[in-house]
């Protein structure tokens, strides 16, 4: 199914997906936030998951008709407004390179830059939290300088340490807990990104403005 600049399709038997073909930008993401907030009022929709330029809606296939839901998404998207969130500013202290960022050299080589240039570019940019995903409190950040974009690793690592700051494709993010992952690790922060007993449990929320602040290397 196709209309205008978005695709609408089913993922398996219990999810409906809206995927915009427009370039990933803040305007498109704001429409996705708006649509997500509209759908959240409907109890029969079990999960409403914004991604980068896309939205996945989970339902019970025995009680909700997926095809009808797709048609509804299509209709809503045509009239979607941009949600306005009041941004919070969050500073993330990061130890770049060394044991904290074993892939800093790979990212530098791919970009044709020095490691110091990568750190300067990564910490010089301002990022926006586009959505959370992958693991609890993991924020996908928009705003990575283009020259730092690096394709994901061919084989994901079985364990990436908690607090790792990483680059995957044109995105950057922070691993709140140790997990398998295919992104390049360039540094580490000591902040607690996720605490299930905190309200909200996630340090970062959609719309937040984030900066990375380089820290001096650890001295043994």
């Amino acid at each position, binding site marked *: 199914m196709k209309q205008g600049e978005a695709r609408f399709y089913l993922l398996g038997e219990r999810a409906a997906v809206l995927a915009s073909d427009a370039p990933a930008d803040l305007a498109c993401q704001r429409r996705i936030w708006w649509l997500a907030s509209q759908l959240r009022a409907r109890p029969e929709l079990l999960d409403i998951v914004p991604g980068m330029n896309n939205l996945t809606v989970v339902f019970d296939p*025995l009680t909700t008709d997926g095809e009808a839901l797709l048609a509804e998404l299509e209709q809503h998207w045509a009239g979607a407004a941009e949600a306005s969130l009041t941004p919070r500013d969050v500073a993330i202290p990061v130890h770049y390179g060394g044991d904290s960022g074993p892939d800093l050299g790979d990212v530098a080589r791919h970009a044709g830059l020095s490691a110091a240039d990568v750190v300067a570019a990564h910490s010089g940019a301002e990022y926006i939290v586009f959505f959370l*995903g992958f693991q*609890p409190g993991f924020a996908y950040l928009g705003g990575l300088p283009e020259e730092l974009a690096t394709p994901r690793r*061919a084989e994901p690592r079985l364990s990436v340490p908690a607090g790792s700051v990483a680059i995957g494709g044109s*995105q950057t993010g922070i691993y709140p*807990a140790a997990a398998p992952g*295919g992104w390049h690790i360039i540094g580490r922060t000591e902040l607690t990104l*996720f605490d299930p007993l905190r309200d909200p449990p996630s340090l970062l929320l959609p719309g937040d403005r984030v900066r990375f602040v380089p820290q001096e290397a650890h001295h043994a």
Partner: protein
Amino acid sequence: MLEILRPGVQTTVQDLGRHGFRHLGIGQSGALDAPALMMANRLVGNPADAAGLEIVLGPVCLRFLRDGWFALTGADFDATLDGLPVWSGWRQPVRAGQVLQLPGCRHGMRAYLAVDGGIAVPEVLGARATDLNAGFGGHEGRALQAGDRLPQGEPVALNGKAGSRPPAWTPEIRALPGPEYTEFSAAAQDAFWTRPWTVTPQSNRMGYRLAGPTLAREARHDLLSHGVLPGVVQVPPGGQPIVLMADAQTTGGYPRIATVIEADLWKLAQARPGAELHFVPCTLGDARRALQQHRYQLNRFNWSAYGN
């Protein structure tokens, strides 16, 4: 109350998982063989989504600390209660102090233990399931250890033994083509449906990593991160598929060649490393009918347990 004497490889408190928090990156967790946990719960008079124990391989040993009922489902672990054989798929009464031994299973991977009243650990973010990756939920957010004591809910009054026939495991896994299916080469599409896929030892509650022919994708562009669910079959650039399971991440970026239908996900949960699987194409209608059939079987059991 239950006391763990010997925890085995990985015994966790699980229910049917955490829902409604995917937008915060909080995954589902919950029983990998969900129909088995639901059946165990029904046998002991619990709601189907009560918390029980998921037991991976053996040997496991635990002691009951109050009178009540229990049921074991899923893989048959040759269990004994104070040395006497326990039938998998049946409920039976138990007295405080009795010891349940689960030496291990010859087939399958996971057994489910339900007790009347359920395992009454506190709910965290709406569920009692253990999130092993993030370390919360269940009992202290981790797999059980010797000496752990688990609270049990209010007793349920039940009459006599009741049992159910477990579903037969077969290596055929029904799946629907995924959103990026057509981006794979014709040879890869054909191989996906016609070649056997071996479960590798790197398979766990997050995902089943399969080994087989390399699945080449013709499109080269990286995908933007998108929502994923248990059952989604991702193919990283290395070309070996991963079937996402209950502990999988909420979003991913690898192309999705297929999704395993919900009614067949339990077969993966019971597949051991080295097992060969075959993906069988089906339609949305097939998937819905299969799920309907699962619910029907659960309800039919309710009739036989309570209707006479």
